[in-house]
């Protein structure tokens, strides 16, 4: 294991987000806070409790999840797409490092950023709405696993994309809709019976539900289904990344 190389990539990636602190940290925190203000503090007081939790508190885990998914994907995808776009990828490909080490550096940095963001947003949320965390360790586990998995997905997108449009495509057209429809703003019990079944096909439901469980001890699906789903995601993403490097897809002609 070439830890020095991993560290070099990791540190450079972290430094990149510090250089762009407004875009990579301040902006997601502000936009998520706006949701808390509008849906939690303003409208939330007029909505009755959901599953015995005030509406403002109910949406906290889902909103953090929404931010986590989109930020992980866009951070990680940009991280690897940019060197491909500018051509500096040559240096990474010619360095004496394994593919695993490259992924560890890039995805590790993207996931770290997401976890930090998640914690900042969590702290910010507590300023607007009162909430409790029933299982803090599980909450952290979900935070880390989700950040990691979706950073891997972002890495894959960053390699697949051959232009800036494709880079935005998945976060905007797939992740955001799935998260909005994945129980961020509602419990799926509130849906008509047919949609309750259909919505189970949405993988984000399991993530939001599991995360919410770690806050309030209850979710739309069992905590084990949520953990199973995130593990499955992680496994699939790892398999795809492995295939990308073995085949040289979009990296090595």
């Amino acid at each position, binding site marked *: 294991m070439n830890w020095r*190389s991993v560290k070099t*990539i990791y540190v450079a990636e972290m430094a990149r987000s510090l250089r762009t602190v407004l875009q990579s940290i301040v902006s997601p925190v502000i936009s998520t806070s706006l949701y808390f203000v509008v849906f939690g503090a303003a409208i939330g007081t007029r909505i009755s409790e959901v599953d015995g939790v005030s509406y403002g508190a109910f949406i906290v885990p889902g909103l953090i999840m929404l931010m986590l998914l989109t930020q992980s994907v866009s951070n990680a995808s940009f991280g690897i797409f940019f060197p491909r776009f500018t*051509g*500096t990828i040559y*240096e*990474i490909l010619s360095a*004496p490092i394994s593919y695993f080490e490259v992924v560890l550096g890039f995805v590790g940095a993207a996931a770290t950023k997401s976890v930090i963001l998640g914690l900042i947003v969590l702290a910010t949320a507590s300023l607007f709405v009162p909430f409790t965390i029933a299982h803090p360790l599980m909450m952290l586990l979900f935070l880390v696993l989700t950040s990691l998995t979706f950073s891997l997905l972002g890495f894959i997108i960053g390699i697949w994309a051959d232009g800036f449009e494709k880079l935005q495509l998945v976060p905007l057209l797939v992740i955001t809709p799935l998260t909005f429809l994945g129980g961020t703003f509602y419990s799926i019990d509130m849906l008509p019976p047919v949609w309750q079944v259909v919505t189970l096909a949405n993988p984000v439901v399991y993530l939001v539900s599991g995360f919410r469980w770690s806050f309030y001890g209850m979710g739309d699906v069992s905590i084990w289904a949520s953990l199973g789903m995130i593990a499955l995601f992680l496994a699939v993403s790892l398999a795809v990344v492995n295939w990308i490097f073995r085949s040289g897809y979009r990296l*090595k002609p």
Partner: protein
Amino acid sequence: MSDATVIHVEGLSKVYDSGFQALKGIDLEIRRGEIFALLGPNGAGKTTLISVICGLVNASGGKVLVDGHDNVHDYREARSRIGLVPQELTGEAFSTVWDTVSFSRGLFGKPASPVHIEKILRSLSLWEKRRSKLITLSGGMKRRVLIAKALAHEPQILFLDEPTAGVDVELRRDMWEVVRSLRENGVTIILTTHYIEEAEEMADRIGVIRAGELVLVEEKRELMRKLGSKALTLHLSEPLTRIPEALAGHDLTLEEDGHALVYTYDAARQGEGEEEPAGIAELLADLEAAGIHFKDLHTRQSSLEEIFVSLVREGA
């Protein structure tokens, strides 16, 4: 593979997905400590060859050993010995010179060494620019940064893909100096170039690649000797209308409206035990006898460029 060989390329071929065959069974040995120039027209396979050796492109067949290490199975050992300066001027636009060069060193797994980085930056006249962001640098300076990045991990072998493309003459001379001093420090240098002048100026050996095949690998001196020709031009005091009978035995042509006599001879005849290029003394004696006087003379040897053009044309 002997100790003197630092890169061993055997039967290397590359067919791109498009079906284009960029390399057709290349065999090549690079000697430790030499400057090897790879010449060839656009699309001949120069960059592909370098890219395969450095690990940027997968080979379709054949193998590459770097200092005895297979560049696929033992890529860590192989790659750690190589520094690559790419053709394109790329770089993290918003990084500083210092940061980007330090990054390269770390990426190759070497412990940080501000002393070494300073040495490199100074030798490339980049020290004053160390805090500048890449985006603010000129093309020539960016090229130097790329060289600094490639040298950051103290490689034994340096690949320079078109190092002086788009670089002004003065800077090109500076760059040559840098390359020479690297060689003095024992670094093996492989460069591709369009500027034949560059190969002529610097290389110990020359390889010519054409349509994916190495058509020639030769010592530069040997190549110039074998394929070059020399011409002696005599500027006459009085113009001639035709070559006099007395001089018919020499290979002469009349040029510049009869103001110059040009004697062409084979450069290869030089140095083969003959003190003097064959025929010059006789020619001068015959001129004297024929009463032809000249006011000036010069000799010129065909350049590598002419040799190269004729080689590449041959196969076209």
